[in-house]
């Protein structure tokens, strides 16, 4: 089976869907001729032509608005927002229009748009190339919010997203594009040594709304998504704790049973995410767990998150949750 990094896997998912479904079209800033600043659409314009894979003007609000119009009128658009930090000019189109179209028209109209957008830190990108804005979108009814953490899931979830009749915001943790960053910026291993880098060339799908148990364990549950899956895994490996690691993969709709089953078993839980803490998606998980698993809990649920500050340039590694911070939270959960 071919080995792919996350960029290859995303490109392969787009290619499969462009081939299978003539209504799929791919566009965004620098997406066409150049193939995207992260190269996720490289070669697609020359293969499928400029009417299916094309460059747009530099205007995120416009990109999403035309995607909605195309989606309303029979196409299945996959626009790219070059960095999720730049998604906000499109916020009105996404949250007021795309998310509410089906509801406001009593089910008459909808737009099957999949918005791909790189997110997250760890690339020395400072305030405006590092954000993890998933919670703005999980807070908006009507949107699916997806964030894969490995090549196999990236392709399978992207295909499911494109096939979904509901709009999807598909976050790609850019720190993971070329290797499973595990918290050590000095050494990012390549994807090729990872089992999840084995990605079929052809069509397959990974269901939306299903979390993955990355590592089974009995003592504590660690719930996370995106880049932090790998940092948490390394932290658990270092700690020797028998932790169960859950990769949510889809944040909305949330796979609550997988989390509650695990926490009922372990009685302890730590939630980890890169985004700032206050009103981060972790808060929702903690609230759901106290409601559903209250009588199973042996310790307060821990949260390891980015701090409630903008994402700084010079202090990137103090800002992003580290293995040490995750381990400390896991040990606290066990000690309580």
């Amino acid at each position, binding site marked *: 089976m071919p080995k792919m990094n996350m960029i290859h896997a995303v490109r392969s998912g787009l290619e499969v869907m462009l081939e299978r479904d003539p209504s799929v079209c791919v566009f965004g800033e620098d997406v066409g001729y150049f193939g995207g600043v992260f190269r996720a659409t490289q070669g697609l314009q020359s293969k499928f032509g400029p009417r299916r894979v094309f460059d747009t*003007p*530099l205007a995120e609000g416009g990109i999403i608005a035309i995607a909605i119009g195309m989606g309303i009128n029979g196409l299945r658009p996959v626009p790219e927002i070059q960095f999720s*930090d730049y998604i*906000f000019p499109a916020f009105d189109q996404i949250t007021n229009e795309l998310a509410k179209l089906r509801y406001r028209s009593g089910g008459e109209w909808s737009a099957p748009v999949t918005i791909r957008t790189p997110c997250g830190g760890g690339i020395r990108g400072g305030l*405006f190339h590092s954000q993890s804005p998933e919670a703005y979108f999980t807070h908006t009814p009507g949107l699916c919010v997806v964030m894969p953490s490995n090549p196999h899931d990236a392709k399978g979830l992207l295909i499911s997203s494109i096939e979904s009749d509901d709009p999807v915001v598909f976050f790609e943790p850019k720190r993971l594009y070329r290797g499973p960053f595990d918290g050590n910026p000095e050494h990012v291993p390549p994807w090729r040594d990872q089992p999840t880098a084995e990605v079929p060339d052809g069509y397959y799908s990974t269901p939306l709304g299903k979390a993955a148990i990355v590592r089974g364990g009995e003592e504590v549950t660690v719930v996370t998504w995106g880049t932090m899956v790998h940092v948490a895994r390394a932290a658990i490996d270092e700690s020797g704790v028998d932790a169960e690691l859950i990769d949510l993969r889809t944040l909305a709709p949330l796979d609550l049973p997988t989390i509650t089953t695990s926490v009922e078993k372990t009685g302890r839980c730590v939630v980890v995410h890169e985004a700032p803490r206050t009103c981060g998606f972790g808060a929702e998980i903690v609230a759901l767990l106290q409601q559903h698993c209250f009588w199973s809990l042996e310790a307060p649920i821990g949260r390891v998150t980015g701090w409630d*500050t903008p994402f700084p340039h*010079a*202090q990137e590694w103090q800002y992003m949750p580290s293995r040490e911070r995750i381990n*400390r939270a896991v040990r606290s959960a066990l000690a309580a």
Partner: protein
Amino acid sequence: MDGCMTNYSPLVGTARSSLRSAETDLKDPLPLVLHVPTAPHRPGDSPRFEPFPDQPGDLPKPDTLSPFDLLHNHAIGMIRVLGADGAAAGPWDPQLSPQQLRSGLEMMMRARCLDVRMIGMQRQGRLSFYLSSKGEEAVAVAGAMPYSTRDILFPSYRQPGTLLVRGMPLLAMMCHSISNRHDNVKGRQMPLHYSWKAGNVVSISSPVGTQLPQAVGAAMAFACRGERSVAAAWIGDGTSSQGDFHHAINFASVFLPPCILHVVNNQWAISTHCQQATGGTAFALRAEAYSLPGLRVDGNDFLAVFAVEQWAIERARRGGGPTLIELVTYRREAHSTSDDPTQYRPADEGNGWPGGDPIDRLKIHLIQRGEWSEEAHQSLDAALDQEVVASLAHAESFGSLASGLGHSPSTMFDDVYTNLPDHLRNQLREMQIETAKDEPGNSILPFVGKDRRAAG
């Protein structure tokens, strides 16, 4: 649509049209396909540029309170002063003294030296990132020199020359780009995202175009106070697609505050050529639709840029309101150090640019006037390079990617709000406790041992 209405059922209906037009009735139909424009040149093509539309002297210089429609030809043509022979001609010649011209030349050369050295630094891993502004020095320098220090400027990230003009010391600029402990923005931003309040230059952010309508607001504040000061902002050709461009020019046309909006048309927005960004690449002409004057200028012609800015500033100070200026130039280098332009444009495309190089053109002009020499130029260039190299060494002594940037992590929590709120105070404490326990022997501050990791 009467037919549609009468046939409409309140429960189930289908749209019906009374119009009988069918495709066969259309007169001379063109093929109906999705039009997807492309760039004029791609790798492998031989680049060919049209010559500039006007010669120096072709366009008159109207009074600065002229009605906007008197400037139609200025919006579709091109204001120029320096001819191919290096001589200045026409009513737009700002008649600067040799000393002013030499100081402009020096500023452009300093900006170029800085650019070359910073790109080199990035390649050596001593900067996280950089964006070259090579070839656009006249936009940054002549574009800023005519402003008074009480005017407020909102530059984009590709004009460090503007910061030099506004008095930001080289050392401070470097400390910022390195992100070390003497960075006046405290290591928060990527390189080139300057802020220089002492020079009335507003903090630069990465989201493009956001500053343009903000400049309109700043100008409205001047107008509210009856102050004859000007707010100016610069964006690129690609950014003119953003809603913020349209917000800016529309609000400017409604409230007529003393603001000057610039589109630096350097042809390329990363890989996207300006012909792919808009159906009408005369960006200055957009002003007319808003009843504002638009001026299109050769952005590599120091004298023309200076004169156009002077004109717009005078108009604004006299109470004549906003001007849109398009500076036609060429992005000589990659978009950034993360970009490889040979993937999407011919490597030699810039060699055919009809605007040439702004430094060479001003140099030739000064030499022709007997006010400069090749030798003086070379020795100034060497002196500036020494100045830049010395500043760099000095800047790195305050922290570098190799030796550590020298910030206390606790400063991360400053400036989120005016005062540190309780929840951030708690998070700061949490971070200090964690770090202290994880690295025994370290005092809680200043986390020197961890700073090394920022180099990754």
